[in-house]
């Protein structure tokens, strides 16, 4: 097998809290993600999914362990890895359009071209009428869509998405799932995707990583062997699809029970 796109080895993260204690958030995680692979992470709330993405993104330093991206150790953020944060983190002083244009402009794309591409993306996330709004004037779901558009705009090789569709209604979510799959298939991106939706994970992913309750460890990695391109309507009647969902739900149930029993 060729070199993995992302290799995570023995990754551990401890936080020191305000009251001086040390809090183990992630404990000895090992994952490899191949180029062009779509990997979802499922896990109980607070198990360290976001923290894991931050470390792959190069925003937060691991306490121990190593992360390499394309063979090189991660030392900081780079435009090869595009994050979509759980809290959106839009620039409040920029309009929606300017937010989406930001990355392109930083990479030297001309203003006109950046605007055209930003508008196309805004159209995709159903926000073309809100280009001149400021983030504070948007609803939660609208902000989330701007954040997605902002990251997709500058076309990073790797997408690090933290519950990117969490605040969206079912219809919009479905539309965006399809759009994301389209982009992924077209551009051969590598995606690390945190979600709470088991169906979403199965629908989108090549593999699903299930994490234990805090401190986060890997419970199991489930290979999703469903044909691509995937069409929702077809999958819904696919027995394998249903089995995967049941298996993952069971795993999550186990994760919770284990912790309760321990």
């Amino acid at each position, binding site marked *: 097998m060729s070199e993995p796109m992302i290799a995570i080895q023995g990754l551990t993260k401890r936080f020191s809290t305000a009251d001086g204690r040390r809090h183990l958030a992630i404990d000895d995680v090992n994952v490899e993600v191949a180029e062009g692979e779509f990997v979802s992470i499922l896990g109980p709330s607070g198990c360290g999914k976001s923290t894991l993405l931050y470390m792959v993104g190069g925003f937060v330093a691991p306490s121990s362990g190593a992360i390499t991206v394309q063979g090189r150790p991660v030392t900081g*953020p780079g*435009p090869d890895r595009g*994050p979509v*944060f759980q809290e959106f*983190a839009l620039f409040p002083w920029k309009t929606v359009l300017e937010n989406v244009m930001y990355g392109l402009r930083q990479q030297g794309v001309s203003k006109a071209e950046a605007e055209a591409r930003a508008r196309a993306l805004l159209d995709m996330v159903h926000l073309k009428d809100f280009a001149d709004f*400021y983030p504070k004037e948007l609803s939660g779901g609208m902000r989330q869509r701007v954040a997605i558009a902002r990251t997709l705009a500058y076309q990073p090789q790797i997408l690090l998405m933290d519950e990117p569709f969490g605040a969206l209604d079912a219809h919009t979510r479905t539309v965006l799932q399809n759009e994301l799959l389209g982009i992924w298939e077209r551009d051969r991106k590598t995606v690390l995707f945190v979600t709470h939706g088991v169906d979403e994970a199965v629908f989108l992913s090549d593999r699903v990583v299930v994490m234990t309750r805090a401190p986060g460890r890997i419970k199991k990695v489930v290979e999703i062997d469903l044909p691509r391109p995937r069409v929702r309507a077809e999958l819904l009647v696919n027995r394998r699809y249903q089995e995967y969902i049941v298996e993952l739900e069971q795993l999550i149930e186990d994760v919770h029970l284990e912790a309760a029993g321990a």
Partner: protein
Amino acid sequence: MSASNIFAGERLRGTAASVLPLAVILLAWEAVCRAGLVAPTLLPAPSVVLLRWIALLPDPDFLHHVAQTMIRLLSGFAIALAAGVSIGLLASRGGGGLLEPVIRVLAPIPKIALYPAFVLIFGFDHASKIALVVADAVFPILLATFHGARSVEPKLLWSAWAAGASRRATIFTVVLPSALPSILTGCKIALLISCVTVFLAEMISSTDGLGHLLIRSARSFRIVDMFVPLVTISTIGLLLNAALVAVRNRLLVGHGNHR
């Protein structure tokens, strides 16, 4: 009532709210003087001062003094702004460990005491007074910038870095805009301090400017003439502040609650 009418009413009430207290203070002052509670040789009635002020306004000699003060004030403030923001940003990023102690030591020293040295270094003209204004006004801006730049929401910076923005670019596209509300508050304070400082410098040693005008009047106990420069500097402060507020409103459209 139509919407525009409601807004007009609102604005009217706003103006009233902002003028009223000032008017009340002036009226009380006037009443105190009229009632003879205070000797006119110490505190003239505002009406008297106002009349003298209006009479002086077209006087080219008076305007010359005003202009001298304005030149010192504005150039001092502008330099303090440029220096304060850039040093503040620098200190908040890499150079914090080295710059912070220096700032801590320099900020609280009374710059007035340096004035004789400034005069000898920069001469008796504008430069020494401008230097004093800069020395006094730079720290509020610097500290506000420093604080604003340090409290940037990290995920905003992360987003920018991940988008491929260089360190330098994030300073201008993330740190600065994010610190802007804080910086502008620092500017407001610095502006008022600049007014005081330029006036003081002119009081201590000068042959023109509003501060000098005051000292000249004070030495010959022309009490009404003493209040004219005070009213003038206060008006200048009000006008410059209004300009600053206008700039602020333009710059901060998107920011949180800053309407």
